[in-house]
């Protein structure tokens, strides 16, 4: 007997196949959709009259075309690309800040040194002095700006991390929900292809955000997601993450699994990239900037503090770097540049007569600010008081006196001159020796008249007795003219007589602050602060450029201190004495540039790899409309033919019924 069933199975099967094809066409552009293929199989035949007669066709299974290898590769590529992109975005913002226009910190630094050099020509030019202070302020402002911008960048990164973690939590929840739904559907023996597609897409979206490790439980159809062993999704449960500060290092942001309070090792995806940028790359640049500022401040302040402005000796001065406690030792008083054991030399000048004397004050790191004030107050005509309210030190000179920290020469000690010696010595120049010293000048040869007697000589010895120079002061010497001795020291002898054996001496201070107390406390310094965010120009200089310490003698035309400042340009201050300030800054900028370049290349590579992998995925899982249309026609014909077959079978029944009538 002919059965309708055969035709009916064909109708039903082709109808279902058409639905599958229709679904493929509808989802051709759906992200993450894997094409489905109807797998037809013939139904169980029946045996009759020694024949096995087929009973039609059925559609037992709809396959979802997917390559596990390609999918896993796409997941891995997603978090690597996400990581690159996040790091690149961060470093690009840093690069932009460091190289803005022609007024970057490096450019401003060069301008400052150029200003110092130009000042050596026109020390009395008020406009140039004001410009120099202004340029210093510009440099400080630029460093402040950079520090502020990087702080803001860190804050923005934190915000983005928080949003990213929220997105991760949302996706984890969705994956967990899909796991539950898939299990519910598949437990009834039904394939949940579309739900699986959605889950795969969520997993890939999650992979762009964090480095995931996905495992699938074969029996339950669940996908478990872990990050460095810490679960994000376990079956139908998601474990949320949260952002917090690293307890071991509160300046760092970390992400922890909330319920377990265990840090998550996010080394990939956008989160991994953001965390690396926030905790490693950005702080590295910030650290370099602070190191640059710190060294710049210290180097310039050390020189400036031991100089004198064109206004001459100071009458009043207040420190600009505060201590946390006036009675605590300076080593633990919160100073950015703690002092060491050494001496501070104060020069005290009688403003009426011009007579100047040097006074040594011993400093130890165990001293408190109060101890330093007491020691300075021991210098005649100088007083120092501690301002306990703000942890500063104020120094003032008695009326008619002024003070400085320039060192130089003490008034010659003429105790060794007898009545037979009537010449008056006068020191000139500025001592530039490796350590502070005392020179003794002894007349030798033939006693007589300065500038006239043949063979009258002046021998100079240092404090260890070594002869540093022997000069003719008899015939041929012009009385009053400067004689070069050694290391920047000159001496002039007035007209008069000199007795062989008579001597005079003078203490010479090349290093007037071996303790570093001036920089530590911010006394007579160029800058205030100690890093990129706190650097500023000493308010004493703003609008008062006569306080710019260009000399060491107080003479308007003495450029000795501004030359020392200019020389810092070529002094290797960083990297263990191997890099100048400018070299360090250039290296900072070009290192960031190199990182951006490398990340750009990596990102482009990841992009190409991603495209390649997606092309591979498409070749396996993608929907080709033309293919589906062809299959559509195929099953349409099958449906039509099945309907025809049923019509024919019906006709045979009609013929049979005709026989029975």
């Amino acid at each position: 007997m002919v059965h309708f069933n055969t035709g009916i199975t064909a109708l039903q099967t082709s109808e279902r196949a058409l639905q599958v094809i229709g679904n493929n066409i509808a989802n051709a552009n759906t992200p993450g959709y894997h094409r489905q293929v109807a797998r037809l199989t013939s139904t169980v035949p029946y045996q009759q009259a020694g024949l096995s007669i087929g009973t039609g066709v059925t559609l037992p299974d709809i396959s979802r075309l997917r390559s596990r290898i390609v999918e896993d590769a796409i997941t891995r590529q997603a978090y690597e690309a996400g990581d690159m992109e996040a790091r690149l975005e961060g470093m690009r913002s840093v690069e932009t800040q460091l190289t803005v226009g022609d007024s970057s910190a490096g450019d401003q630094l060069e301008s400052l040194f150029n200003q110092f050099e130009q000042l050596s020509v026109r020390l009395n030019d008020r406009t140039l002095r004001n410009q120099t202070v202004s340029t210093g302020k510009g440099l400080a402002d630029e460093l402040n700006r950079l520090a502020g911008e990087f702080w803001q960048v860190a804050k923005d990164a934190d915000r983005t991390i928080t949003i990213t973690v929220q997105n991760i939590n949302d996706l984890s929840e969705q994956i967990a929900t899909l796991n539950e739904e898939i299990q519910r559907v598949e437990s009834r023996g039904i394939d949940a292809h579309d739900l699986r597609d959605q889950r795969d897409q969520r997993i890939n979206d999650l992979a762009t955000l964090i480095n995931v490790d996905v495992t699938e439980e074969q029996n339950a159809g669940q996908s478990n997601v872990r990050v460095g062993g810490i679960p994000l999704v376990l079956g139908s449960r998601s474990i949320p993450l949260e952002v917090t500060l690293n307890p071991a290092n509160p300046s760092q942001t970390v992400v922890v699994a909330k319920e377990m309070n265990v840090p998550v090792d996010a080394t990939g995806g956008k989160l991994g990239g953001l965390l690396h940028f926030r905790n490693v790359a950005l702080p590295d640049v910030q650290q370099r900037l602070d190191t640059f500022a710190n060294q710049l401040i210290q180097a310039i302040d050390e020189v400036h503090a031991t100089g004198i402005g064109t206004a001459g000796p100071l009458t009043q001065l207040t420190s600009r770097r505060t201590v946390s406690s006036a009675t605590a030792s300076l080593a633990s008083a919160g100073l950015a540049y703690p002092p060491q054991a050494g001496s501070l030399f104060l020069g005290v000048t009688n403003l009426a007569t011009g007579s100047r004397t040097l006074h040594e004050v011993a400093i130890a790191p165990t001293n408190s600010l109060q101890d330093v004030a007491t020691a300075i107050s021991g210098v005649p005509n100088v007083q120092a008081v501690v301002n306990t309210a703000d942890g500063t030190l104020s120094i003032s000179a008695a009326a008619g006196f002024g003070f400085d920290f320039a060192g130089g020469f003490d008034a010659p000690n003429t105790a060794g001159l007898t009545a037979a010696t009537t010449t008056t010595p006068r020191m000139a120049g500025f001592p530039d020796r490796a350590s502070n010293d005392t020179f003794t000048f002894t007349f030798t040869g033939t006693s007589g008249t300065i500038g006239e007697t043949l063979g009258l000589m002046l021998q100079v010895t240092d404090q260890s007795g070594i002869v540093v120079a022997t000069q003719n002061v008899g015939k041929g010497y012009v009385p009053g003219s400067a004689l070069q001795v050694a290391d920047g020291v000159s001496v002039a002898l007035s007209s008069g007589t000199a007795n062989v054996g008579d001597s005079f001496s003078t203490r010479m201070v090349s290093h007037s602050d071996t303790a570093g107390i001036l920089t530590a406390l911010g006394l007579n310094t160029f800058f205030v602060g100690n890093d990129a965010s706190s650097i500023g120009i000493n308010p004493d200089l703003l609008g008062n450029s006569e306080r710019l310490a260009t000399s060491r003698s107080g003479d308007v035309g003495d450029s000795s201190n501004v030359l020392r400042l200019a020389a810092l340009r070529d002094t290797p201050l960083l990297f263990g004495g191997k890099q100048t300030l400018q070299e360090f800054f250039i290296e900072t900028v070009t290192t960031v540039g190199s990182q951006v370049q490398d990340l750009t290349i990596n990102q482009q590579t990841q992009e190409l790899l991603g495209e390649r992998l997606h092309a591979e995925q498409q070749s396996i899982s993608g929907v080709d409309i033309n293919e589906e249309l062809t299959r559509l026609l195929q099953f349409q014909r099958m449906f039509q033919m099945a309907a025809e077959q049923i019509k024919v079978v019906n006709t045979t029944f009609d013929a049979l019924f005709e026989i029975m009538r």
Partner: protein
Amino acid sequence: MISLRVTPQGQTDQIIGNLRRNSAQLSKFQEQVTTGKRLLRPSDGPSDTALVRASKSEDQRLEAQLNNIRDALTTLQTSEDGLLQVRDILTEASQTAITANDPTADSTAGTGSIVEVQNLIDRLFSVANQRLPDGRYLFSGTTTDQKPFDVTARDADGNPTVVTYQGSLDNVKTLVGRNQTVDTIRSGQGALEDAFKALIALRDDLSKPLSTTWTQSLRSQALGQRITQLDLATQDALAQLGAQGVDAQNLTAIRSRGEDIQTELRKYIDALESADLPQAIIGLQTQENMYQAGLAVAARINNLSLVDFLQ
């Protein structure tokens, strides 16, 4: 067989990716053409950026130093002019002394000589205390705001008898190169002080009337010593002039070398930093063509479908 299967979605992804890359390249060449620069940010060429920055720093430094050299040369020139005037004053004084020492000279010439020498002293004051256009004293050493020479004693007629140098013993040092300075404003101690002493002494000797204690012979001897003193002072002035002349010559050589170095440096910076415009323009055109081709292909491929052929 699987790798041969290209879906419309796959084609679209590929087209979009290629358009994106073309667009990025276009943008890069466009930037180069409009700015004329190849290095717009450190990531465009980190090692070249380091060279450019270091070279630009050096260029700015050279510029500052060349300005300093120009200023220093101007100051030295003014100082040289001053010293030449000192030399002329001393030469005239010497001539006056020689004339006054001539026993055949008219006795009335003596009075004239005294006035002449006094005038020379006044002229020397004027030269020794001269200022530069910016107000600094030329012969005061580092105390450039301090008048170098002042009268500290006068005779009954008000004529200066003692002129004291009040300036500094130290010279003003101007930075003209790496760790290189030149003395621009020198101390007036020495040459000028001696010149004053010699002129005052000559005037005093000429002023003294002849007497039993001041005979013609003693006068003649004294005038001879004054001539020697004037000669020594002239030699001191010329020695200083010579030293400054050498400094000026050296500065001129340094300036010339500095200008040459600066020219080469600027060429070097330009070579590193500037875009190769012809290459950039060709690149721009090429990328533009590729972009247009990509768009045309996208339009063509997306138009192909089986639907168009179904009846």
